[in-house]
């Protein structure tokens, strides 16, 4: 079996196994799996509104998935995409609500870039600690997630507003929202961010596959010592890949700030997009093309699930179980490969 085909078989098998397990769970608890899944599908493609919502949900997933993937390629596990996303959201809102009278051509890019810079700075911390002092990036990024959440809420309440729980709406000159896209999709919250996300998927694909830097990232992720001997700067690569990862996750947050919500508000708990991004990157096999597809799949599952309680009586939390199981099957792909090898051998013997 060619490598390319195998790269496709594993995620597809994982998704199918995840859905089958979901069906079994529904059966165990006395729900009708067919009704449940039809409600899910209807909630994704039943109406233009749902399609718009699915694409909107997939937008930050693509960017955060790319973030996790870039770090992963360099051998780093970026659990901190969540915090970087929050900082990006915050950065974009600070620019978006504090400047008035700028033209869209200046205001919007400025807000977007600020968000990316905020995310990048937040990821620079674990990057530099890992590169210079070998501090475990998993723990540092987890800690920075909480730090980001509290700073986010503090800034919203004390610096952007006077003790309010929500900032003012962003000025039209810094908004990603689009009346055209909304009216096309029956007034869903679809916004221009999807084009930015797809654009960055292309840029990251080019970076990883066509540039020396992309090659160095993969080399460092594959074998640090060998890369060092080959004359690459492992430290620089680690720091830069984290910074790029942070900028991408930050951009994911910008999508929420300038696109979906058009504001920043006090969060009682972390929104979880950064964590979902880990799932997106894993299912997408850390390849930008795979990530676009897995982001759309997870976006569809999340949005479609909202239709399940009303139509089929199935709690929408089931979808999170299915997503968890899909990651398990991807993580345990050894067993899938093993089964495929057995199957192939069996076929040959006949």
């Amino acid at each position: 079996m060619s490598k390319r085909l195998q790269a496709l078989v594993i995620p597809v098998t994982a998704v199918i196994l995840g859905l089958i397990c979901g069906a079994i769970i529904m059966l165990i608890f006395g729900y009708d799996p067919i009704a449940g899944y039809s409600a899910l599908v209807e909630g994704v493609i039943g109406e233009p509104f749902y399609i718009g919502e699915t694409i909107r949900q997939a937008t930050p997933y693509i960017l955060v998935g790319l973030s996790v993937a870039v770090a992963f390629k360099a051998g780093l596990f970026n659990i901190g995409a969540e915090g970087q996303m929050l900082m990006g959201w915050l950065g974009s809102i600070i620019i978006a609500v504090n400047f008035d009278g700028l033209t869209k051509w200046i205001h919007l890019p400025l807000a977007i870039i600020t968000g990316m810079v905020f995310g990048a700075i937040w990821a620079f911390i674990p990057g530099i600690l890992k590169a210079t002092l070998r501090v475990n990036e998993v723990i540092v990024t987890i800690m920075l997630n909480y730090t980001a959440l509290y700073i986010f809420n503090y800034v919203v309440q004390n610096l952007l507003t006077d003790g309010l729980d929500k900032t003012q709406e962003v000025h039209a000159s810094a908004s990603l929202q689009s009346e055209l896209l909304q009216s096309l999709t029956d007034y869903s919250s679809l916004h221009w961010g999807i084009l930015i996300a797809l654009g960055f998927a292309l840029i990251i694909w080019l970076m990883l596959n066509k540039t020396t830097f992309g090659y160095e990232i993969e080399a460092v992720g594959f074998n640090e010592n060998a890369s060092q001997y080959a004359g690459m700067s492992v430290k620089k690569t680690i720091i830069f890949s984290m910074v790029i990862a942070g900028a991408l996750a930050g951009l994911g947050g910008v999508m929420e700030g300038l696109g979906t919500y058009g504001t920043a508000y006090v969060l009682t708990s972390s929104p979880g997009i950064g964590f979902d991004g880990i799932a997106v990157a894993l299912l997408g096999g850390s390849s930008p093309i795979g990530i676009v597809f897995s982001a759309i799949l997870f976006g569809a599952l999340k949005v479609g699930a909202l239709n399940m309680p009303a139509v089929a009586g199935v709690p929408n939390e089931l979808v999170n179980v299915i997503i968890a199981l899909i990651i398990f099957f991807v993580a345990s792909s050894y067993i899938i490969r093993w089964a495929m090898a057995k199957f192939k051998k069996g076929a040959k013997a006949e």
Partner: protein
Amino acid sequence: MTAILATIVSSTLLMAGPLIFTALGGVYSERGGVVNIGLEGMMVMGAFSAIVFNLTFQDTFGNLTPWISLIAAMVVGGLFSLVHAVATINFRADHVISGVAINFLATGLSLFLVKVIYDKGQTDQIKYYFGKPDIPVLSDIPVIGEIFFKNIPVMSYVAIIFAIVSWFIIYKTRFGLRLRSVGEHPLAADTMGIKVRWMRYQGVIISGILGGLGGAVYAQSFTLDFGHATISGQGYMALAAMIFGKWNPLGAMGAAIFFGFAQCLAITGGSLPFFKDIPDVYLQIAPYVLTILALVGFIGKSEAPKADGVNYIKGK
């Protein structure tokens, strides 16, 4: 002054108790060579099953309910950890990824079950929970009694005893030696006739039992119900405590108490002198920032077991 100290000690220990149990769980798992980011999920399952068990049997067991619920939580935590064990030990999954999946699964599954059982997003409040009793006799000792033995979170003292016992188990018993050997050099251990997989299974299952216990203690001391925000990061804190404590039970305990202290400041700081004037946000982020600074300061000294996170494939 004594009163302030008593408040600080009491709430520090209260916050630290669940972290100690869970961090100890992490020590067992990682000493055996299995990285356990899934501690958070094991706490979630423990908190969930304890609250459900507590609500279901409160009329049967009365005052004893929270204690018996602990057993339920430990059983569920232990069973749940099997998923991580199978994925990492048999299916050669990446330990961190499997751990992340464990956390996803625990949150998804527990909230799904809450909806199925109670038809709403969170459970009712429990009637019987862990109070803060005074210890007779000891609490009559002047000053010390008031600080350490009045108004105390009992389970936190149990946790400290667990930590000491765990230190003994890991460093002074045959089981501990074997567990450490499969975490340091599984091939050598295998050659000596130690069953690597079985040892690792035991480490992970103990981590599930202790993680479940930690979650149950937390839910039955603080939140008193179960919903999406019941366990929000305590498992990750416990993981950090374990690393900070150099994979040593007593070190993990010390780190957990330190985190408990930092969290206690974040919550009660506003009512204490010296801390009143500091904006909340600094106290809120203190535990996390201090953790990072501590990790930076402990460079080179905090080394994981050598084969931690490395899948052992026989014959390779």
